C-alpha cells in the first residue's frame, strides 16, 4: 500500500475477510486506548496505560500472519498484540480494571496479560525481558519438532538492553523458530532513537548476529504483513530466526497520560498523515475491496464491542480477598513454612 492508498496489483494481500478483520482490530485498539485514557482521566481507572497508537497496522498484520498454533510474547504496550491473538477486548479491559473477569483474574494488570489458549504466553513489564524467554519458547518448539513459530514484540528501546543481544545471538546460533518483531516507534520512553543509538538502523545492527534482518514500513500494513508472513513461514519450516524492524512513530505520549509536548511538531504531523486505520480505510474503499457500507458496519461493530467491553469490565466483580494468596505456588501447602 502506498501513501496515496494504492497498492501494486501483483503483490499478495490477505483475503477480504482478513482485511476487514485487520481494519476492525486497528480501530478496536484505538478505541480501547482512547476510552481507557478517558476513564483514567476521570479517575475511574487506576492502571498504567501504554497506548499502541501508531502501531495498529503492525499488530493487525501480525494477527493475520500468525497461525493459531504460533505463540507470542509481548510487552507492556500490548493491547494491539493481544487483540491480534483474538483475545476479547472485554477480558483485556477487565484486567485493566483489576477485575475477576480479566485475563489474569485481575492479578496481573495491563502489563501482564496472558492467554495461553490463544497463544499469548506472557507479557512482560520489563523492557527487553521478553527476548530471552522467546529463545526458550523457540527451543521448546524446536525440540517438539512442531511447525510453530514464536513472535516476540518489543519497542526500539528494548534493543538497548544487553539480554536482547544475548537472545539474538542464541536464536541465530541455535537456528530457532523465533521472529523478533521490533515495533520501532522512534522513542525509548522520552528519548528519541537518534539520541540513544549511534547507529539507529536497528536491522543493520541485528544482521551482524547472523540472522535474516530487515526494515519494513510499519505504517504500511500490507508490506508489514508480507514481511512477517515470509519470516514466520521461514521460522516454521526450520529456516531459523528473523528480525523485522517495523518503522512507525508513536502518536501519543509514552504512557496514557504522560507529557508529549517535547515531540517535534513537524515529525508528529508527518506521522499522523500515516495514521494506519484512516489510511487502511481509504485504501480498502478506493481499491473497491470493501465498500463504504461494509466499512460503516465494521465501525459500528467496533464501537459496540468497545461499549460492551467497558461495561463488562466495570460490572465484573473484583477478585475475592482470598485470591491474594492463591497462585503464588502450584501448591500452597506448607509455604513458606509448615
Amino acid at each position, binding site marked *: 500500500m502506498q501513501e496515496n492508498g494504492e497498492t501494486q496489483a501483483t503483490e499478495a494481500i490477505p483475503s477480504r475477510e482478513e482485511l476487514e478483520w485487520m481494519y476492525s482490530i486497528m480501530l478496536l485498539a484505538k478505541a480501547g486506548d482512547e476510552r481507557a485514557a478517558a476513564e483514567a482521566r476521570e479517575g475511574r481507572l487506576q492502571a498504567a496505560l501504554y497506548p499502541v497508537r501508531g502501531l495498529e497496522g503492525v499488530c493487525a498484520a501480525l494477527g493475520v500472519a500468525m497461525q493459531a498454533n504460533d505463540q507470542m510474547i509481548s510487552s507492556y504496550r500490548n493491547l494491539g498484540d493481544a487483540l491480534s491473538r483474538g483475545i476479547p477486548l472485554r477480558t483485556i479491559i477487565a484486567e485493566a480494571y483489576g477485575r475477576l473477569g480479566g485475563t*489474569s483474574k*485481575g492479578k*496481573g494488570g495491563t502489563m501482564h496479560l496472558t492467554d495461553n489458549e490463544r497463544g499469548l504466553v506472557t507479557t512482560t513489564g520489563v523492557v527487553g525481558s521478553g527476548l*530471552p524467554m522467546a529463545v*526458550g519458547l523457540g527451543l521448546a518448539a524446536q525440540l517438539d519438532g512442531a511447525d510453530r513459530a514464536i513472535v516476540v514484540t518489543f519497542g526500539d528501546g528494548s534493543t538497548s538492553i544487553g539480554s536482547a543481544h544475548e537472545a539474538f545471538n*542464541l536464536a541465530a546460533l541455535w537456528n530457532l523458530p523465533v521472529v523478533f518483531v521490533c515495533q520501532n516507534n522512534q522513542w525509548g520512553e522520552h528519548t528519541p532513537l537518534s539520541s540513544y543509538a549511534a547507529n539507529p538502523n536497528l536491522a543493520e545492527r541485528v544482521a551482524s548476529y547472523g540472522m535474516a534482518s530487515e526494515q519494513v514500513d510499519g505504517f504500511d500494513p500490507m508490506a508489514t504483513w508480507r514481511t512477517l508472513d515470509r519470516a514466520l513461514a521461514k521460522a516454521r519450516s526450520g529456516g531459523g530466526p528473523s528480525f523485522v524492524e517495523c518503522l512507525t512513530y508513536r502518536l501519543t505520549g509514552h504512557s496514557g497520560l504522560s507529557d508529549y509536548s517535547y515531540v517535534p511538531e513537524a515529525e508528529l504531523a508527518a506521522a499522523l498523515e500515516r495514521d494506519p486505520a484512516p489510511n487502511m480505510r481509504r485504501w480498502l474503499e478506493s481499491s473497491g475491496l470493501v465498500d463504504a457500507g461494509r466499512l460503516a458496519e465494521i465501525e459500528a461493530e467496533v464501537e459496540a464491542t468497545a461499549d460492551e467491553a467497558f461495561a463488562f469490565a466495570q460490572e465484573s466483580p473484583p477478585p475475592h480477598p482470598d485470591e491474594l494468596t492463591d497462585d503464588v505456588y*502450584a501448591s500452597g501447602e506448607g509455604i*513458606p*513454612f509448615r
Partner: protein
Amino acid sequence: MSEEQTEKMTIVAALNSALDVALGLDERVIMMGEDIADPIGGVMKATKGLSTKYGEDRVRATPIVEQTIVGSAVGAAMGGYRPVAEIMFMDFLCQAMDQIINHAAKSRFMSGGHTTVPLVVRAMVGSSNFGAQHSQALEAWFMHTPGLKVVMPSNPYDTKGLLLSSIFDDDPVIFIENMAMSYSVPGMVPTGDYRIPLGEAAVLQEGEDVTVITYGAEVHTVMAAAESLVDEMSVEVIDLRTLVPLDLTTCLESVTKTRRAIVVHGSTQFCGPGAEIATLITDELFGALDVPVARLGGTYTPIAFAKELESLPTEDKVVAALRELVERPSVARQR
C-alpha cells in the same frame, strides 16, 4: 533400578546421577548452561557424559549469557519443558535476577494461575580461592521472593533426592550447591530414582541441651563442633535441607524439648535466614525458651580472600557459640 542398589558417590556424582535419572525418565527435562556439554561436561563435571547420552539438543552448552540461560529456561518451561539451568557460581545469579525474580517467580501469580514455570536453577556457593565475587551465599534473597523454592543440601544422598524432587516440582526452584563439598563428603546413594520431599528437615543427631538448626555446608561444621563438645553437652542437630518450604514443625518440636536454639548458616547473619527462623521460633515458643534464639552467620562483610580473614562460621566459632548458649542463665528461671 531399585533403591536398594547403592553406590558410594561424591556430591558431584550424585548431581550427575540425579540429572541422568531425570533426563532418562522424562523427555521434557532439558538442561542449559555454560560448558555443560561434553567433552568438558561442566566446570565441576556434574553433567559429564549427559550430552553424549541424551544429545546436545537436550543438554545444551550456551555462551556466557546468564540472563538468557535463565530466560530461555523460563521460556522453555512456559513451553512445556522442565529445564535445569546451571549458573556455575551463585554470585552470577546477579546477572540473571530479572529473569528469576520478575519472570520465573511471578509469572504464575501475574497470570492468575494460568502459567506454570517448572524450572531449576543450579548454582554453587563456598569457593575458597576466587575472592568475593565467586563465594557468597545468597539464599536469603531468594527466600525473600514469593514464588521461588530454595533448596540447599548437605550430602550426596540428599542432593540427589532433592534435585529429583526439584526437577519434577511445578514451581521454580533455586538449588544451591557448595563447591567445597563437591568431592569431600562422599556417601552411599541409590543409583535409581528416589525423591526427598521439599520441606522436610532431617534430625541428624538427637540431643537434650541445645538445638542447632543449619543447612548446606555448615551442617558439617556443626556436626564437628557437636562431636568436640560431646563430653560437655548433648546437641540436637537439624539439617533443614530446604529453606522454602521451611520445616518449622521439626524445629519447634526440637526446641520445645531443648529450650535453647541457635541457627547457623554461611550467609550474612544480618537479615539472614537465621533472623527469620529465630523469630518464627520465638513467636511460637516465647514463654518456653530458656534463652533467646541465637544466630551465627557470616560477618557483615564481603568474603575475603586471605584465609586469616574468615567470615563464615568455623568449628571454633560454633563451639564458642554453643558454650555461651548453654552456659547462659535461663531467662525463665530469673523471672
